[in-house]
């Protein structure tokens, strides 16, 4: 792949000449990213008449900017309202919302924007300079390896539910079983669908997301007149620009954290079909694991916002790599981009970098520029957007319900999905009020289907030989890492106890 300074500088110039377009595309992207149920794929499809009419470079600048911006926007509602804009930002709720309740919403938003930007930019830079090597990763990440990676995410069920393990596990396994509704991965036979055709393709994630998070949160928040704690309310009222700056400082005190969690996102994103939601959960799990204070996760700490947001955006780079290098789209948005590219007569795959390297590398240059632009458009907004939580709950809760229900309906256009959302809203409410962790439930619903698909595929490829799971060197390394990550918390605890007992006897 013939990368040259000339290509990069040409692409930077091209992108700067379309700065206005990037501003528009990123603004649209952030808004739709923040709205549950709307995503970059549907939006780009709606705007196909535009992208097909303009030059392919311009179309790509527009689509890539919108795509990355939608990853950035997802965290806003997770942090302020405990409502994830999409599966990729579900993990952001874990610490983002507690921060907002403490009156640190503005800082949390800044953390999420800066982490998204750093995660996105670092992975875009890595992609530019190491593209051939990163693309090779796809050759080592097969079903077996994915099984282990998914298990990393699934072990998070136990971590998030540590305050009541038994109930957390019940919620997690109920989530896994709900995730197993719908056509099986080999024969496409419907299972557990109650006869509803609407469930043949599985329970729609967005209905679960909006139900257990938005609807149940709206019901819960009615117990107070504000989502903020009293102290948080005081802080929030006085908040000014200082808080935005504090957020920036907080972020860059954790620069390395933003970088490595972004790289986790990049690696997971490369695998076709694996998306931002896995990346975010795995990054959160890893972040918690190597933290000196894992017990603080979930109470509103900066790392808990940084890890999922950075990974979620790193995943955006990863998603585009198989599309560009192999010519196979890794996700729905990439598939729509493929339509536009083929329409313009651009051949994706290895030939792209021989025939039109500018376009190939240009994608990552656009990412760099788009993230830089977004930092300037989003950071000043944090001061105003974060005030959203000051709205009294009897007004806020109905608005949340009315507008998130639109998101539950929009992706598929079934009235059924609205009813399903209400059912999950009721389930979510009961879960929260009776100590069953809803994040554990959600992790099961999101990761369960992918885990099943990969397990069944690995078994089928091997002729139903269970040893297949320990047959690949990369997979085995990952297994060891998984075992270590499960053991570390107990070892740390044991050492602490020993140190404490020594201190006591001394």
């Amino acid at each position, binding site marked *: 792949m013939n990368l040259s300074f000339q290509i990069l500088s040409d692409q930077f110039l091209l992108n700067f000449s379309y700065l206005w377009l990037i501003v528009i595309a990123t603004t649209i992207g952030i808004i739709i990213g923040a709205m549950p149920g709307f995503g970059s794929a549907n939006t780009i499809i*709606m705007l196909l008449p535009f992208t097909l009419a303009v030059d392919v470079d311009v179309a790509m600048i527009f689509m890539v900017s919108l795509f990355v911006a939608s990853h950035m926007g997802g965290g806003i509602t997770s942090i302020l309202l405990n409502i994830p804009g999409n599966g990729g930002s579900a993990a952001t709720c874990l610490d983002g919302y507690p921060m907002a309740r403490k009156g640190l919403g503005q800082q949390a938003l800044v953390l999420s924007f800066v982490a998204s930007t750093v995660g996105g930019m670092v992975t875009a830079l890595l992609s530019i300079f190491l593209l051939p090597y990163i693309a090779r990763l796809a050759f080592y990440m097969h079903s077996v390896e994915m099984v282990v990676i998914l298990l990393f995410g699934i072990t998070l069920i136990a971590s998030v539910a540590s305050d009541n393990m038994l109930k957390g*596990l019940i919620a997690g396994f109920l989530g896994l079983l709900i995730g197993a509704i719908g056509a099986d991965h*080999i024969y496409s036979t419907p299972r*557990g669908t109650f006869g509803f055709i609407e469930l043949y393709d599985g329970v729609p994630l967005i209905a679960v997301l909006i139900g257990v998070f938005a609807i149940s949160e709206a019901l819960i928040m009615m117990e107070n007149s504000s989502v903020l704690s009293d102290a948080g309310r005081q802080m929030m009222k006085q908040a000014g620009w200082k808080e935005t700056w504090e957020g920036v400082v907080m972020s860059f005190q954790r620069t390395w954290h933003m970088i490595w969690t972004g790289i986790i996102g990049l690696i997971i994103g490369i695998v076709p079909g694996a998306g931002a939601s896995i990346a975010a959960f795995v990054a959160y799990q890893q972040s918690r694991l190597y933290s000196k204070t894992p017990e603080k996760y979930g109470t509103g700490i900066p790392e808990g916002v940084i890890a999922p947001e950075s990974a979620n955006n790193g995943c955006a780079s990863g998603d585009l790599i198989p599309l560009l290098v192999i010519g196979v789209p890794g996700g729905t948005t990439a598939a729509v981009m493929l339509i536009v590219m083929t329409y313009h007569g651009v051949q994706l795959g290895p030939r792209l970098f021989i025939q039109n390297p500018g376009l190939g590398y240009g994608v990552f240059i656009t990412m760099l520029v788009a993230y830089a632009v977004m930092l300037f458009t989003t950071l000043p907004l944090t001061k105003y957007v974060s005030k959203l939580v000051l709205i009294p709950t*009897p007004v806020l*809760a109905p608005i949340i319900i009315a507008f998130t229900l639109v998101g539950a309906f*929009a992706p598929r256009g079934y009235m059924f999905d609205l009813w399903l959302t209400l059912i999950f809203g009721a*389930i979510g*409410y009961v879960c929260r*009020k009776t100590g069953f962790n809803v994040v554990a439930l959600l992790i099961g619903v999101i990761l369960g289907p992918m885990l099943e698909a990969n397990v069944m595929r690995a078994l089928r490829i091997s002729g139903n030989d269970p040893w297949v799971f320990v047959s690949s060197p990369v997979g085995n390394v990952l297994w060891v890492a998984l075992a270590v990550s499960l053991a570390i918390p107990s070892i740390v605890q044991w050492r602490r106890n020993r140190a404490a007992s020594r201190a006591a006897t001394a």
Partner: protein
Amino acid sequence: MNDDRNGKVATGADWIIPILGAGFATYYLISIKDLDWEAKVSGVFCAVVLFLLIGIFALRTVLGLLRGTHYIELRSLYESHKLALIRGSLFALTVASVAIIPWAGFTLSTFGFLFACFVWLQGMSARNAAITAGALAFAGYVLFILILRTSFPQGPFERLASALIGL
């Protein structure tokens, strides 16, 4: 539900999820009983583990009740009658607004829902509530119907608007 009072654990409302879970798992197993093992195995695994966990939960609760470390109450589900009333009405209004969408369309049902909530829950004056709910519903109409073109069933408002502006 883990709010220990005098060292005792409240139980009762936290049976709802395990009972629902066990019911669903049973239904799921029945729905897959005739399928090939490849379509079955993961569901069976999850269901069995779920039954096991629920079994442990039931055992713990029963033992707790026998030993007197647990006591039964349902209050934690709704906390107080006032809150229960507020939540109940919010949820009921939500259900009602979804139910009328096929006839009233998105804009009118959203307006009605928000208006009722603002008047009822926040105690806004009818005029203020109508203005706020109207502005929000109209903004929703512009954003979701006109711009994002979600395929909500059309109601009188949408049809009138499209007849007037020809969109």
